[in-house]
């Protein structure tokens, strides 16, 4: 047990689609957990990661909490991996980068169709939104990138088995997609 590779995962400004795609490795998960144990992850509900080998980050950085989580992962993971289009270039959430943040908030919470009890959320417990959504390599050093929206289950499988078996991870042409 102690020799298992420790993996942590999280979704920042993402849609959990990459996590769903990861679960699409289906029964290969049984092979995987012979070599791997999950630390902080939506799969385990562990809240903070400690000394992991691999951290898989889905999503870009859109608020202050994303930055804290990302830095926690960088501090605790030997290998940090950007998973999916949003982690790599901001993806769909970064579409708001072309609209001033105030306009976004006004549209969503004040002026939008069907808004009731119009007010911009300002509870101090809510993380502050960043001016722009950023890809994670602009915040911390990233060791590997798995492109795709989402990366297919085979991408996760190829990458993790390469690492587990001690090879430098590489993706063949058929597995590299940005969409």
């Amino acid at each position, binding site marked *: 047990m102690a020799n298992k590779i420790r993996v942590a995962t999280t979704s920042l400004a993402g849609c959990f689609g990459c996590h769903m795609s990861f679960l699409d490795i289906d029964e290969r998960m049984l092979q995987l957990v012979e070599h791997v144990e999950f630390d902080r992850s939506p799969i385990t509900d562990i809240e903070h990661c400690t000394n992991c080998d691999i951290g898989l980050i889905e999503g870009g950085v859109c608020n202050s909490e994303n930055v804290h989580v990302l830095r926690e992962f960088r501090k605790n993971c030997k290998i940090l991996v*950007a998973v999916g289009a949003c982690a790599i*270039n901001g993806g769909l959430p970064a579409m708001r980068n072309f609209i001033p943040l105030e306009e976004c908030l006004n549209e969503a919470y004040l002026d939008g169709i069907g808004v009731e009890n119009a007010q911009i959320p300002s509870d101090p417990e809510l993380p502050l939104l960043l001016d722009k959504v950023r890809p994670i390599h602009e915040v911390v050093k990233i060791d590997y990138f798995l492109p795709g929206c989402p990366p297919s289950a085979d991408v996760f499988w190829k990458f993790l088995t390469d690492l587990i078996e001690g090879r430098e991870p590489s993706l063949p042409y058929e597995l590299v997609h940005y*969409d």
Partner: protein
Amino acid sequence: MSKSITIDGNTVPFEEGQTIMEAATAAGVYIPHLCHHPEFTPHGSCKLCNVKVNGRICSACTFPAMEGQQVLNNTQELTDDRQLITQMLFVEGNHFCPSCEKTGNCQLQAVAYHLNMLDNHFPLFYPARKVDASHAEVMIDHNRCIFCTLCVRASQQKDGKDVFAISGRGLNKHLLVNAQSGLLKDTDIEATDQAAHICPTGAILIKHTAYQVPIGERIYDHKQIDQVSLETENSQHGK
């Protein structure tokens, strides 16, 4: 005896007046490129076709082949340079492949796949650019323009029109259309013009055709751009 150069140590014959790109393509050697198209005057702006000629970096699409040149093309150093250039093209525009209808048919994306580009390396610019959907049949998404000038050249050299131009410098560089209003609908472009079909990215698109070919059956889904390029462009050189 015919004249020849070597590319990566292999002898490649050429005819007087040919560029290194033309000689290479005729010999079945792929040199990555985006702004080059065999039917048009070379522009030499994308710099993806950088090769080393007798130790000096040159653009293969503009540099004439000359007797005895030793050309390096497929080296790690050049592949690394080309990947960095492609990453710059990605971060300077807004290239969101999942929401682009050109995905799978896009040469920018295909070159990036070919170079095994997995990340953007540089900080992203997220420049504010517009979409011009004013024309009934053709649209421009300026977010995806890489300023290759293929539409400019196609409009002038094939269509006998003058619909497009590049204006401004550096960060302010942008694609212009030839109309007082600045809108495509007020130009004489038609959906049958070559300029409307030549764009290597998803910047100029024909409306109402987006997903006629499903993702998974598109040009670069199963073939790499080197193979596609040599198959389609070899016959076009010297036209």
